């Protein structure tokens, strides 16, 4: 009995010693004192509810991918962080366009070094484009039908020419998504046999395992798939470095909202992503050490798509009726909270060519009844139970589902709300039979505010097979015709007219519920600056443009530790703060 008590006492003492000083993180990295010492290496921690992403720039096309690529790789041109998304020179200093707009000649700057020290030349550009269009994954869909392997030619060491098989007006706006890889490194890590003949797997496996073959400002280190990775500064980056720019970033996949919150509260995490609950965003707005960067102009439309290939969604009037059952105001004001705007037609107003004559659908039970009466399925109680699907980490989509479900139930229409893991969703939308009835998607704009980015990828028949494009499986020959013509036309006024007609048709057909123009947000520490939301792709993370003010992030300070630990440390002479 006494022994038992003694043991418990010892345990309590040991555990208690941990509490004597609040257990702050103790780090072997140096640097305490003065802000803005050139020696201060600013390390950020980024925690978000998403995976680490595929580190091969020809493979990924989603959010985690665009956390990696802008930092590890360079492109010929890039988005201008300082002003509404324009394209400015990056690796290419200037470019010529042929009179038929089908041949682009890029002149590269000299002295751009890959991480292994070799120089970036036109050869690398050709290799990368051929690689991208051979592998046909990732964002290769942007150039599908217009660039094949072989279309790129090396004119001389610093000049490269790309031939387009068909005219493509938005071409330049897509080029920031084309990343240049290091042929030497890739060729050294080909795995044969592989799906690409002589090129084996084109180095895909090696890259995805957590390596980079880039020339960008950061190097990929310590990649633990689905867990974490580090981005560490590449000192030889061609743009050079200024004090207070970020030295490194440590990414952690954290799926618990409460955990991200605690990390930010304690200062252990300085930046997070857009998948948080809006409650969390409200908190970050108010918390003294953090603030939230919002996109200045919403560039992503949020749709509740309806599978137009399956009854009852094959009937236009049914879809219009359902569009009037969604409480847009409650969604925007109570669920999203962050300042979304009403989405009028399929395209946000930030894009040029927006058709301002369109009449949006409003929440009105009366109007809904009117529309339903005109449809084949006017007896709502006889309609089968519909399924509303959402991606399982996105809370506000779930709430939107509950909202729609509640209002629909008032009219006797049954809707079930179901969560889908990302992988399953991708799988199901490729098949019209398996596609969920109603799906919440945020359309990605991908490239500069050219309407083609939003309208083509979503509404053209040929793109109706993939996740970001057309879970509504919408086919309209007139829309296809207009989109094709507009892509190739060069006169902006002409293109505007065509796009406006497209928007009118789509708005009338109502293949999706136009839920909102989504505001993107990034909760971050107040000391972090340079977060830009002018980039069309919502979750693009460009660390080079950020800088840090004030005392280095918490993780760099040497903190108090419990007396016993301190004694032990001193005894073993490990207590060395510098």
């Amino acid at each position: 009995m006494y022994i038992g008590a003694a043991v418990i006492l010892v345990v309590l003492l040991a555990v208690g010693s941990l509490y004597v000083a609040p257990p702050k993180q103790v780090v072997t990295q140096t640097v305490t004192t003065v802000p803005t010492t050139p020696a201060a290496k600013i390390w950020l921690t980024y925690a978000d509810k998403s995976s680490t992403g595929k580190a091969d720039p020809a493979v990924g096309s989603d959010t985690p991918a665009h956390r990696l690529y802008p930092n590890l790789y360079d492109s010929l041109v890039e988005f201008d962080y300082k002003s509404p998304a324009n394209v400015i020179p990056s690796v290419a200093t200037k470019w010529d366009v042929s009179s038929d707009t089908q041949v682009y000649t890029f002149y590269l700057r000299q002295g751009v070094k890959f991480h292994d020290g070799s120089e970036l030349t036109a050869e690398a550009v050709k290799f990368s484009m051929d690689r991208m269009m051979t592998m046909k994954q990732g964002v290769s869909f942007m150039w599908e039908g217009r660039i094949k392997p072989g279309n790129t030619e090396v004119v001389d060491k610093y000049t490269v020419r790309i031939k387009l098989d068909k005219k493509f007006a938005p071409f330049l706006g897509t080029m920031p998504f084309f990343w240049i890889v290091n042929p030497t490194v890739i060729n050294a890590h080909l795995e044969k046999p592989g799906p690409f003949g002589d090129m084996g797997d084109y180095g895909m496996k090696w890259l995805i395992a957590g390596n980079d073959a880039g020339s960008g400002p950061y190097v990929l280190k310590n990649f633990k798939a689905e867990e974490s990775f580090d981005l560490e500064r590449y000192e030889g980056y061609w743009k050079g470095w200024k004090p207070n720019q970020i030295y490194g970033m440590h990414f952690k996949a954290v799926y618990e909202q409460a955990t991200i919150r605690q990390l930010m509260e304690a200062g252990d995490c300085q930046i997070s992503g857009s998948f948080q609950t809006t409650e969390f965003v409200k908190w970050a707005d108010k918390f003294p050490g953090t603030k939230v960067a919002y996109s200045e102009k919403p560039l992503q439309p949020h749709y509740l798509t309806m599978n137009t290939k399956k009854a009852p969604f094959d009937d236009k009037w049914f879809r219009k009726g359902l569009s009037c059952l969604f409480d847009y105001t409650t969604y925007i004001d109570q669920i999203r909270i962050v300042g979304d705007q009403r989405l009028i037609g399929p395209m946000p107003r930030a894009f040029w060519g927006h058709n301002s004559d369109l009449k949006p659908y409003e929440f009105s039970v009366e109007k809904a009844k009117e529309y339903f009466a005109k449809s084949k399925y006017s007896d709502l109680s006889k309609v089968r139970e519909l399924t509303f699907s959402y991606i399982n980490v996105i809370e506000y989509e779930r709430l939107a589902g509950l909202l729609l479900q509640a209002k629909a139930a008032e009219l006797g229409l049954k809707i079930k709300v179901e969560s889908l893991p990302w992988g399953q969703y991708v799988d199901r939308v490729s098949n019209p039979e398996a596609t969920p009835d109603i799906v919440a998607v945020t359309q990605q704009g991908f490239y500069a505010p050219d309407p083609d980015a939003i309208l083509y990828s979503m509404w053209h028949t040929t793109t109706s097979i993939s996740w970001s494009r057309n879970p509504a499986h919408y086919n309209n020959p007139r829309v296809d015709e207009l989109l094709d013509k507009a892509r190739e036309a060069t006169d902006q006024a002409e293109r505007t007219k065509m796009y406006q007609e497209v928007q009118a048709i789509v708005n009338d057909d109502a293949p999706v519920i136009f839920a909102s123009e989504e505001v993107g947000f990034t909760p971050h520490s107040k000391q972090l600056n340079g977060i830009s939301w002018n980039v069309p792709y919502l979750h693009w993370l460009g660390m080079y443009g950020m800088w840090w003010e004030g005392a280095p992030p918490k993780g760099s300070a040497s903190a108090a530790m419990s007396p016993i630990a301190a004694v032990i440390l001193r005894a073993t002479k490990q207590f060395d703060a510098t």
Partner: protein
Amino acid sequence: MGYGSYLIRRLLYTIPIIFGISVLIFILTRVIPGDPVKLALGPDATPDMIAQARRIWNLDKPLHMQYIAFIVGFFTGDWGISLRTYNNVLADLARFAPATYELTAVAVSFSALVGILTGIVAATHKDKWQDHISRILSIGGVSMPLFWSGIMLQLLIASYFKLLPIGGRIGDGVTPPVHVTGFYLLDSLFSGNWIAFWSCAQHIILPAFVLSFPSLANINRLVRSAMIDQRSKDYVILQEANGMPRRLIVYKYMLKNSLASAITMIALMFAYSLGGVALVEAVFFWPGMGNYLVQAIHFKDFNAIMSVVVLVGIIIVAANFLVDLLYGYLDPRIRYGEER
């Protein structure tokens, strides 16, 4: 019936079990509607790529061929490629499994220690208030949803009182110790890395405590009933009659006899905890096998699922075998091979 033949019999018994597990899990995971290949390659894969990948991953062969490939691969260390992480599953597990073992080991050790102690207390104070409290705690321990108790403790201790970290295995920015065993606590001790040790210790306390509840409850009950059984044994009565001090009787004799069964119980507890560890890992975002399995299921990553289940099955079978070994050794009747 010597010890040797006893062991061999037990060993032979385990083989069909493991075989059965592999068949079972193979069937369960291959009956998948939907196409895991399309999933893995992403939305923009062409039909060629899909056919190609199917060939590489053996998915175009008939089921029994796939099973044979799986078994062969298992022994050669090729446990397939995870469709989610694109890594070799064995490599993934080598990364995640030690975390789970460490957590479970700490949890079981704690539950063993506290369970035995409280069991003794309950037994020696049978039907008094200590006994009743112990019984209530035991029932509570077994009945409480692990994930709920985890969340509640996390809330109280990590969020409100900020005494311990909210989750994870090691503090941010603390470099993990040099890999020796994969057990951070041990590795940091080996390399004298006190900073890492304290960080890991802080992080493991809450999840291990939560995970230990059910085992604690069971060991408590077990030791209590074993000790109570012992009490009525002849030798105890004899010792009491001879005037031997109570404490001596309890700790030297009764405990030893009860411990034999308690020790075998502990190995079983380890195996039993492997079930609940997935929940604790989810709550405390502990990067272990449980989390890996849950993510794999969401992704229909059947290579990973199969490997994890078979691995867990093997561990449990091994634990049972170890128990038989230990028990056979401890029980002199088996060790010296009595005649039947």
